[in-house]
């Protein structure tokens, strides 16, 4: 985590009246405060927020849709043909969308391949390419590209990012490692995952709640900040890092309250939706998996449409998922144990295929929804970069030296209908982190290296 130095003006007036935020800053906690007025986003004259980047055209959003346990290689292929793209059976639901996608083959994360734990060593680093700590007492991976983006773009929206999922974390170890690793593909820092939200009602509340309720809580939160201050100096370094998570949380609640109040007065491009167009979801977890997934997709679309966030990740299942696909006709058994590790039994392979098609259908649904929404002269889908992927290719073999990845959306930024097969290229040219560099650059970041890559991936290359 970056710890930059504090920049408190030393005027007396300030000292006497320490504001909450000044206090936070003076605590020396991660001070890349993206939402601070000091970054010059607020017009001096009007006090309103304004953007320097094309203020009147819709912004680009990024979402990563993840499914666990890989694919069956025989089902997962695509090639360009005279008549368009030809795809393997795993991709069947995407056939009418071939013009909107880029099929990527051969991308990988070096550290994942090297890791001894075939599952947990290869999941949490999907979007960072970092090494997964194998020390039982140390949770550590690396900051992921979506969270890097969130820090870059998060100042502009109520939520810096949306981290969604379906399954809760299992309370057990696998290969001596915490199952936390299998449940988090977004990491705010090396040592802190962005925990996903699996309750639709809470996502809804975070997106559209007006903050009035929380306003009342501010006095409480202010006070607990004081508690934190009074104990912080007495703690050792590692405990301070933990306590700083708590401080960050308070700050982020306050930020949301402020953003909720300011959304009305934003200058520049305006989202096409200001009031939610979904009913508030019921409390609790939906018991029906397809409904749960659809609801989360709908919320994701609404978040983008209302411009409440521009960055999202969404885990359709956890790694080592025990998700039971009995809701698909002709499928029974658990995803991981029965269907992925199927011993090449044809009947089970067919079920495995159905589950992967089901995952692809979730992408298709998301694309359809995004395409149905107009944003000025474009479709919302054109203003979204979607990455659909798993961390393993051949799931049965825990194969990580390539990963199934599909890009979608992007409008003119990303001409579709193409297959980018990098399989035969040298390792330096097929790093997943290179793809992330490209995507982050497309999202407006000036960044030249990330993870194990020091060059972006050329998505327009002809192979």
């Amino acid at each position, binding site marked *: 985590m970056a710890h930059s130095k504090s920049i408190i003006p030393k005027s007396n007036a300030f000292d006497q009246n320490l504001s909450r935020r000044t206090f936070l800053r003076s605590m020396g906690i991660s001070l890349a405060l993206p939402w601070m007025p000091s970054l010059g986003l607020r017009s001096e004259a009007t006090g309103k927020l304004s953007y320097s980047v094309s203020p009147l055209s819709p912004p680009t959003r990024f979402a990563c849709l993840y499914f666990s346990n890989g694919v069956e290689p025989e089902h997962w292929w695509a090639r360009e043909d005279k008549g368009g793209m030809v795809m393997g059976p795993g991709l069947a639901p995407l056939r009418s969308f071939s013009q909107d996608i880029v099929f990527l083959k051969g991308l990988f994360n070096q550290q994942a391949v090297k890791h001894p734990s075939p599952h947990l060593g290869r999941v949490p680093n999907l979007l960072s390419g970092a090494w997964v700590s194998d020390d039982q007492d140390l949770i550590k991976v690396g900051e992921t590209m979506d969270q890097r983006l969130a820090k870059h773009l998060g100042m502009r929206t109520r939520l810096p990012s949306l981290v969604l999922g379906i399954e809760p974390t299992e309370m057990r170890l696998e*290969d001596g490692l*915490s199952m936390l690793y299998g449940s988090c593909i977004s990491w705010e820092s090396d040592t802190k995952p962005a*925990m996903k939200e699996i309750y639709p009602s809470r996502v809804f509340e975070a997106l559209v709640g007006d903050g009035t309720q929380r306003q009342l809580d501010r006095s409480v939160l202010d006070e607990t900040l004081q508690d934190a201050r009074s104990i912080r100096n*007495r703690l050792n370094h590692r405990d301070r890092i933990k*306590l700083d998570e708590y401080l960050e949380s308070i700050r982020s609640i306050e930020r949301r309250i402020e953003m909720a109040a300011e959304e009305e007065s934003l200058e520049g491009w305006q989202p096409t939706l200001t009031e939610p167009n979904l009913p508030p979801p019921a409390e609790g977890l939906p018991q029906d998996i397809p409904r749960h997934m659809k609801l989360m997709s709908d919320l994701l679309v609404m978040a983008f449409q209302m411009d409440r966030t521009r960055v999202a990740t969404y885990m359709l299942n956890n790694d080592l998922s025990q998700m039971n696909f009995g809701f698909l006709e002709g499928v*029974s058994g658990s995803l991981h144990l029965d269907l992925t590790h199927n011993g090449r039994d044809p*009947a089970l392979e067919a079920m495995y295929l159905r589950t992967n098609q089901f995952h692809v259908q979730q992408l298709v649904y998301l694309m359809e929804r995004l395409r149905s929404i107009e944003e000025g002269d474009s479709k919302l889908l054109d203003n979204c970069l979607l990455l659909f992927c798993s961390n393993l290719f051949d799931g049965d073999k825990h194969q990580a030296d390539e990963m199934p990845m599909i890009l979608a959306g992007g409008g003119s930024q990303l001409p579709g209908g193409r297959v980018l097969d990098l399989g035969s290229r040298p390792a330096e040219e097929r790093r997943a982190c290179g793809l992330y560099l490209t995507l982050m650059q497309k999202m407006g970041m000036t960044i030249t290296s990330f993870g194990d890559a020091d060059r972006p991936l050329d998505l327009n290359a002809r192979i």
Partner: protein
Amino acid sequence: MLPLLPFQAKQDRPLAIDARLIGMACLVALGSISEGFALESFEVRAGAFIRDHCLECHSSQMPKGELDLEIMLTPGQFQRYYPEWSSVLDRVAQGEMPPAEADQPSPQEKLELTELIAETIRNESAQGSGDPGAVIMRRLTRGEYHHVIKDLTGLTLDFWDLLPGDAVGGEGFASHGQVQFVQSSDLERYLDAAKAIAARMVIGAGPLFFYQDPGMLGQEWSAITRINEIYRHHGFRNGAGEGAEPYGLDLWPRVFYLCWRLANQTHEDEEAESEAIVSLSRRLEISPAFAEHIYYQLQRADAFEPLQAVSKAFKELPAHDPLSAPSFESSSALMDPVVAQVRQWQQKLARAKADREETDLLDAVALMGQASPSPAAMQFALAFPTVSHREPAPSDRDPIPRPFTSQYNHPERNAFHYQVKYHRQDDYLVRYLLGPKEREQLDQAWDDLLSAFDYHQANLNLLYEHFQPIAEDGIPRIEELDAQSIDLLEDDLRGWVRALHAHWREVGEAHRLAYPGHLDQCLEMARLAWRHDLTEGDRQQLLTFYRTRREMDQLSHREALQSLLVRILVSPKFLYRLEPPQKSPLESREVIALTGESLATRLSFMLWGSMPDLALLNDGRNQNIVESEHLLSHFNRMRIHPRMRRFASEFFGQWFGFYRFVEFRGVDTSRFPNWEDALRQDLQTEATLFFEDLVMRDGRVSEILFSDAGFINQRLAQHYGLPEAAELEGAGFVKISSLGEHGRGGLLALGAIHALTSAPARTSVVKRGDWILRRVLGTPVPPPPDDAGSLQESRREGEATSIRDLLAFHQRDASCVSCHARMDPLGFAMEGFGVLGQPRLVYEEGLPVEQTGTMADGRLIDGYQGLRDYMSDHIELFYRTFCRKLIGYSLGRAEQLTDHALVEALMQSLRAGDPLSAQLKLMILSPQFQNQRTQESK
């Protein structure tokens, strides 16, 4: 003295080196290895064996099973690779390595290697032995949060879906700081939970307490519950009204017996008589005021009939010798004629009054003095009413109080029932039956009840509508009234309004008087919740917070107090288990003793999964606890406390994975229609009770595997096909100690474990074997190689291949065999248990269940009994796993090399067959438990 301290601190180092030297000396003295050899490093001495027998497979080039022995032999790195060396020791000692197909070292060589590793572990661990290690500040887990709230408020609330979920780390427990995070959404959940708790705080005229239902409705229900409890406990009722149960009627024989004893004694003076009344009534558990009242009534000379009739019957009782003291039990029957007189006259009066309620007499006498009854009736009713009080809420049959119309279905009567709701008539009870303490509690409960909604305003509205239906300026708010405006009211109305207004002020005053007490209680709650003494700064901060809410934010006392509690419960001091080091010059040392409060907190979270209770916290504050004898006396007290049950689910539940088994969704419901919530709950209860019993009985750890006992209810007995099924009807869970006869008993026969180790629609030999190796024996196999591929473990539809044939694949491939030769036989031994734990002899397809397996060393394991025999021969491994888990759970970190001495002590205790408490005791007395590391070791 100060300048000396750094030197003292540094003395640790030379001491540690000494210890190592001593260790070396011991090693030399052992003589099994030549003296010259002993001076060489471990790496040199182990190198020859490793090179000859291991490096072929475990080199840096090809670290099979991710074991790179070459790098582990880097000089000076033994500590770092302690877990790996430890596992090398186990595998070689168990004869599993080198594998059978490789050239075998001589038994002497193997022995030398294992002894060398063991020695080195001992020597290396002596350096810094008992190091507390890097324990990261822990946040309350979901389970701990629930326990703490239960202990703090007495409430059992369900926040399982609300609070942030847990992951596990270290040795597999949720109470590990590394896997605990807080992000803004979590903090919001904590806010929501704290508000839900604060809403259940009853803030009334008495002390604060918590009630299960939230808000003002909760206050109303709590008040009515308290009122009824006092009424029932102290009052009496003759069964007035439909379906009403009589109670408290035994007061009559008791009081007559007391009067009889008094009448047969002579007392020097009134004081002596009063003393006699007090002492007798205490023995009879009745109120002295009641006794005095009745005694007076029976003695009075001016009595009319019917009082006279009762006192006549009393006076006709046989006398007893004043020196003897006949017991109540032996003489209560004597009182029957007197009681009969009372009953008879009560009934007679009730009949004479026809449709009017007999209890109206009480009304008349006690409240208004209006509609005066006859002096005779009044006299009698004052002494012997049929009820001591009336229902707080007038039932349909009860009349509503004057001045309102009590006519059935009259709008006024209905309005009273719906809006005013309550009516207090307990004068007799208050005056004669309650002690001062109960009277205060009853008054407080009534104040709480009548302030839980707009009782006074509703009453005022009704009065206006009754006397002055067309009020010119509308009906005033009760708080707008004062003495002058009341004086100006019309005659009929004035008296009623004045009484009502006075009562309203009384209630308000009673509440205000309670405010300071409430604040004190909140501060005390903060002390408990934060698990440390409040500093003056803390106190002032909390009080200022309350005052600011009141004054600046214009909140009511209730709202401000709730806000204060929320603030206490979302503070990092509550949510995190802080262990701030002592403020002393010793801070510069790397390892220091925990403060008393931190130690008390560690102890209670380890044993109870919750905060310390008052006694423990107080001993933590005054540092008593840091002395072993005090620590142990608390331990001995705490381990038999009912809260100790939580240790069963928190420690054993997380270790073996049945923690929150009720939430397990890994069973294919379409294949197992009987997999319903009730069965899932029963399997959870079966597992929990088994371990609670072990913990509370203070049994031995070995019973986990070898016990023949278990807890079964009827549904489970049927599910498992046990003969006890018929006898268990309606019996709930019962301990059955003969489960061994039916092939059950112990951890490995728990249905929850079978479900957890199955695939959704079938059992899995591999998963179960793997589970036993990981969780029970603590010797997990490494992950499969990437290119291992998989085998088909489940049969195709209608296929009759045996599981053994399917799994035979493992035996063909050299890369599979070394791990599967360990997993599969253990898994096969559990094939006699189906997915849901039910016994089976044949598979669904009709093939017989195969439950034998042969270990690499040729040992045959046959079924569940065979598995238990195998476990019995490998009990050391199980004990070793227990040590690792206990250390991981208690300390919040993984086991490390410097724990070796503790492990040895624990192992010795386990081998000696000591009960569980002995191992827990060793744990809490260990230096790693009582100290903390303030800086990372260098």
